């Protein structure tokens, strides 16, 4: 398993989760966990995903997700899970 975190932040609208999930399905990325909330009118989502089966490298997926975010009008970020583990776990 190779875990990464996807964060989606932006103005709420119809179909954000659908579009992101479709992209992930198309690129063979498995979703392990989703938490989502609306904070002050803004859509906030965090997904823990497994990227071991995808053929693309990390930078490519990251760029494509960023582009998808621009198309939808939200901010999408892909980060390796270690940055969060290191910062928040001793």
């Amino acid at each position, binding site marked *: 398993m190779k875990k990464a975190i996807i964060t989606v932040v932006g103005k709420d609208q119809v179909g954000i989760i659908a579009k992101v999930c479709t992209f992930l399905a198309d690129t063979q990325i498995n979703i392990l966990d989703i938490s989502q909330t609306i904070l002050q009118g803004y859509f*906030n989502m*965090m997904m823990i995903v497994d990227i071991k089966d995808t053929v693309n490298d990390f930078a490519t997926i990251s760029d494509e997700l960023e582009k998808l975010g621009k198309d939808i009008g939200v901010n999408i970020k892909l980060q390796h899970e*270690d*940055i969060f583990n290191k910062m*928040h776990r001793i």
Partner: protein
Amino acid sequence: MINLFEVAETNKMIEQENLDVRTITIGIGLLDCIDNNIDVLCENIYQKVTKTAKNLVETGENIEKKYGIPIVNKRISVTPIAFVGASACQTKEDFVKIAKTLDRCANELGVNFIGGYSAIVSKGMTKAERLLIESIPQALKETQLVCSSVNVGSTKTGLNMDAVQLVGKIVKETAELTKENDSIGCAKFVVFCNAPDDNPFMAGAFHGVSEADAIINVGVSGPGVVRNAIKSAKGKDFGELCETIKKTAFKITRVGQLVAREASAALNIPFGIIDLSLAPTPAVGDSIADCLQEMGLERVGAPGTTAALAILNDQVKKGGVMASSYVGGLSGAFIPVSEDQGMIDAVEAGALTLEKLEAMTCVCSVGLDMIAIPGKTSASTISGIIADEMAIGMINQKTTAVRIIPVIGKDVGETVEFGGLLGYAPIMPVNHFSCDEFINRGGRIPAPIHSFKN
């Protein structure tokens, strides 16, 4: 498992509070490049540096992508050139040739700076070291990315006052030679006492002779993050304030440690140290002054400033030390004036003076940094300022440094624009009473006593 709140906290630090990894610096040993022919030496240096650091920039960019954290600078430090060029360089021009070679390497590799055009003359100067120091103004004029430093003293050896006298002149001469660009050459030259061998920050980085052949050192930063943490402790007592800073420093440093390990593995170069220094940038919110003001000072420079800085510095170290397996370099808080909007504002408001900055350097890392002074300031006065700062380092067993810019053609009331990360600065007044006779004595100040600490 990681939760939404933690992810949001990390990304808020990066996106809104300017958390970044300030620099990945590769230290490269050049002792095996030594030859008594200057051209062969330059070729050896070129080959070694470009080969060792070939993938530095690319690796840095990959790590940025992987973790979503900016890595602002990719830099190189090399063995002090006074050692490397000792047998080949017969003239100042020979040393300048090496500087140009280093500049060429840095340009081709796409790194931000290359440091190590340096001499360690804590106790005495060899002929080569004197030549290198005398070549510094020319070298800094003819190169863009080369940084230079001279270590003129240490707690173990005392102060080499001949060198202090000489570097005062060198600072002045560098200012003259680069006067078309507001004397910017001086922004790339630092004078040290107790210089560390593994500092990743410029302009004072060099790869000390105690180091391995190549090493990765990383400098983390995040004054904006610390400032927001301090804000959350508004009105709380000092115990809670300190805890808050410590916890934040821990988080920031863990990111640095992660990046350092990753870079070390990708480049196949051993990991050296994490430098815990909090380094500001001219960007709004990325300021040490703001951290101090958030603690409750109206302006930096007000009474209480030195105590506030002492708290900040010590807590950053306490949090950072636990977060990293190896800590080194300068590790503290930097207080460069031109690179910190809060400091600039404080100087302009009349709250912060050169003398108060000197007091602040007693409790933080490094020293008088990026301070613009009138161009008419004499070489001996500059030596006097350097001597004072070096004495603080020598007596207190800490690293101190001076990076001061006498801006030729400008005086108090004017400002100077350096651009980029170097920022801009108001020209600060300097005490105009003379120290000529003191500086012109020459010789050494003996090493201090290590007992009867009072």
